[in-house]
């Protein structure tokens, strides 16, 4: 850091501080882990919580505040789809054809979404002409 190279207690304190911070950081990251992000085609047999990313296809039925919103989620570039049921807040732009992400887990062949994790990706900004 530009500190002169003679032995200095300050340098030791700083070095220990940095090392402690890194240690806390690495321990936390390894313990807390994260959420795997999968496509519907990668979901087969998977247990535990994952973030599922895909495109909403077919008809959307049900009610997100009562028996649950039901739809199918397909790979953005692929054909494998999985049925999804979700209860909770639904973003404004959710509809058939949108790319979405939601957290949850696979139960009896249906992906059960976790409340408040449904995110709709914005379609209008920063895309190539050919993709819109």
């Amino acid at each position, binding site marked *: 850091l530009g500190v002169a190279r003679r032995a200095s207690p300050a340098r030791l304190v700083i070095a220990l501080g940095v090392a402690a911070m890194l240690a806390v*950081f690495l321990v936390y990251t390894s313990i807390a882990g994260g959420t795997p992000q999968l496509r519907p085609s990668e979901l087969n047999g998977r247990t535990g919580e994952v973030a599922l990313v895909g495109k909403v296809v077919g008809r959307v039925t049900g009610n997100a505040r009562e028996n649950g919103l039901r739809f199918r989620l397909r790979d953005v570039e692929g054909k494998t789809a999985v049925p999804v049921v979700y209860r909770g807040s639904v973003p404004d732009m959710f509809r058939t054809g949108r790319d979405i992400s939601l957290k949850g887990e696979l139960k009896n062949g249906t992906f059960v979404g976790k409340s408040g994790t449904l995110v709709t990706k914005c379609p209008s900004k920063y895309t*190539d002409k050919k993709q819109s």
Partner: protein
Amino acid sequence: MPDLGRAALIVCLGLAVYAVVAGAFAASTRRRRLAESAENAILASFLAALVASCVLLSALLRHDFSFVYVWRHTSLELPRPYTVSAFWGGQEGSLLLWLLVLTGFSAAAVLLGRRSAPSLLAWTVPVLGAVTVFFSFLLVAVASPFATQAAPADGLGLNPSLQNPYMLAHPPFLYLGFVGLTIPFAFAMGALAARRSDELWVVITRRWTLVAWMLLGFGQLLGAHWAYVEVGWGGYFAWDPVENAALMPWLAATAFLHSVMIQEKRGMLKIWNVLLVVGAFALALFGTFLTRSGILSSIHSFTESSIGPWFLGFIGVVVAGSTALILSRLPLLRSKTRLESPVSREATFLYNNLLLVAFCLTILWGVAYPILTEALRGEPVTVGPPYYNFFLKAFGLPLLILMGIGPLIAWRRASLRGLGRIFAWPLGVAVASGVLLLALGAGSSIPGLVGYTFCVFVLASIVLEFVRGTRARQALSGGSGPAAFAQLVGRNRRRYGGYVVHASIVLLAIGVIGSSAYDTTREQRLQPGESMTVRDYTLTYQGTTQERGPNAVELRALVDVERDGERLGTMRPGKNSYLAEQQVSNESAIRSDRLNGEDLFLIAEQLQPGGPVFLKALVKPLVNLIWIAGFVFVGGALIALWPDAREQRRLALRYGRAEALARA
């Protein structure tokens, strides 16, 4: 018209290439007239970018749907202010805005630099030109805003979420901040290329960084307020990769603004400071890359576009080039003095820097984690808000306490007895406040209680500094208290502007802690006539209204609000159905209490005319302090930035000789 726009961009590219080639040749062969010609090319590139921008703006205002960009981002029904904001609503337009701001800042840097540091400009101009080459090349060859088609009858419209007054200001402020970081980077690289070992570039770089940092910070707060009032989930920051992308360069610039004081005062941390300037600029580019590459899953980052790899390549060039330059100039960057004690002002600034950079790297790690895990394990793994919130507390709370300690502690070396004398008063006030808050029930959140106690400590330190300084000034020159206070601030603008910025960060912290650690949320399905309670509010759903707005059908739930038996009025949460865009947008209702800074936030879901509503009510204590903090922040930064004739004379005396030597 589109031909004029395309031609202006090609001219801009040509001028930028000339500025790079002629500027570098002039700097290496010391040809002054050629260097001036390269500087003029930078000035002219701004005019070319301005012409291109005027062409696009004119097409937007005329609803000229023969421009593909205008067709894709506007419609005949779109209100005029949003027709203007569509300029930066899409990829090509936002890149053009980036180029306009870049060339504008570059022209300002050249004009100001000609007066204050002409010799520094020699190598700075080619660097500014190189960045301009990149952006104008993208607009000419990869993402042109001037593509045309047979004009359709109407356009596709603008994303409803972007149809909000904050979207008129939030993106331009962010761009001003992002792009503004180019200028400190160019001066730092220019000084290194010219083998300058004096601190003049540091003074210039600090000012430009302060400008960019202020704009970026304010832009982020505007974005947070937009998210709060428009996105309608009751929050203002979600640790989304793109939000993080704006926060990272701001943190790096914050670290630089502190450590640069050590370089100016003590001649230390030279390498560290250059690295921070390069890091802030590279992180600004990285943020743009994230937004446009589609590499990460985010509410902002959208499907893959073709400019992502170009940005990645440019970031690689910037990082590799600047690292090579720094390594080749290491002897020039050796420190003249050493850190004398771990208990001194420079040491606290150093700890502050380490925490800021550690927090910045932690965020970078979180953002890059899905990319790294996909590369290593075959599937991306994301880290969410708990990860970031943990580190916000782990690094944010020590940073808060350092903000109170740093300004009061002595340079070089401080004694323990001296520390006790200085901190007795702020510490006493903080402990007393902590006990009082505990008695009032703030112990329901321990991090919240600790945070508030730290905030009181910092505020008490700041007040103490102002009181001491005013008294000393009064003793020195007499006069009234207010006059002495005005003199104090006027004669030490950097220092006291900095304290005002610190006060704004404390306000921000109080608002964030209040609204996140002490908030209340309730959800309930209500039929017309039914009521629910949240905290001390009683909410009664009376029914619905429906009106035709300028470009949407507006359905609203009528919710009467009472508190302690007193009727406070009717709130109208609901949804808008946008006609041209064929989209529905939730419209939350917010009631702010000016006395205690608290918000009552209502979201109406599952709303149908005359039917029941699923009402979500949030009470967010002190949240309004966050927005007030934005204005205090800008006020403090402007005080620190305001030109000071005494300082100018001091600098002219100190660096006049270096300038003369460099020009000889």
